[in-house]
């Protein structure tokens, strides 16, 4: 669970709220428009928990694009996960190269 950035939870909460507010509107069309994107957010979080961090973060980002400008919070969270993963790979590569030389 600690893999998930706190901004992703905030993003998911806001997106769900926006989606549910549409139910109270006279036209229900926006509810059906935003619901798939909220589902994409949920699927992304499930994928990250189940270990597929890269796929999950990308799915979460795609789900957040529909909610820009407020969706940028979720995009920042997912992007920070991807960046941390990249940094981890990069530095483990440096360490293995260093060990080979020794």
């Amino acid at each position, binding site marked *: 669970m600690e893999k998930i950035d706190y901004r992703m939870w905030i993003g998911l909460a806001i997106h769900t709220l926006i989606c549910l507010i549409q139910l109270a509107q006279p036209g229900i069309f926006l509810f059906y428009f935003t619901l798939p994107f909220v589902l994409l957010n949920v699927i992304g979080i499930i994928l990250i928990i189940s270990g597929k961090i890269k796929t999950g973060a990308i799915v979460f980002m795609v789900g957040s694009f529909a909610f*820009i*400008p*407020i969706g*940028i919070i979720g*995009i*920042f969270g997912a*992007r920070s996960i*991807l*960046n941390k993963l*990249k*940094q981890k790979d*990069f530095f483990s590569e*440096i360490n293995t190269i260093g060990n080979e030389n020794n």
Partner: protein
Amino acid sequence: MKIIKNYQMKDSAINLPIYAGSVLAIISLVSFFMTLQPMFLPGLGLSVFFVVLGFINKNRDTIKLYEDHMELKFAPASPVHLIRYSDLIRLEDKNKNMKRLYFQSEGKEKRIWIPLSQHKEEDMQEFIKFLEEKIQSKKN
């Protein structure tokens, strides 16, 4: 890892979205109170987005130089590029505001735009000189 040098965006590039967001906020608020139509409120959300983006950029280092690698991140939500100096291939001119840096990553040749106009001119001259020295020293 110790940072040798870091570069930030220039002040005018940081302040532009803050000013633009403030003007947009004023316009949308005035038009909302004059007409009382809710269709002007999304403009307010967009202006908050611009202002927040400007304040995020204020404390952000776009280029960090370490002893054996560098870290490039030009926009708040863009991917971070970690490049070892030994992986640099070449630097190409595109126009006066952009340069294209080619580097090796995971066995593949990749490229990245360096937006020169976002940074201070003397900073970028120093950075480009530093990159060219690294590429030259690798060739020799």
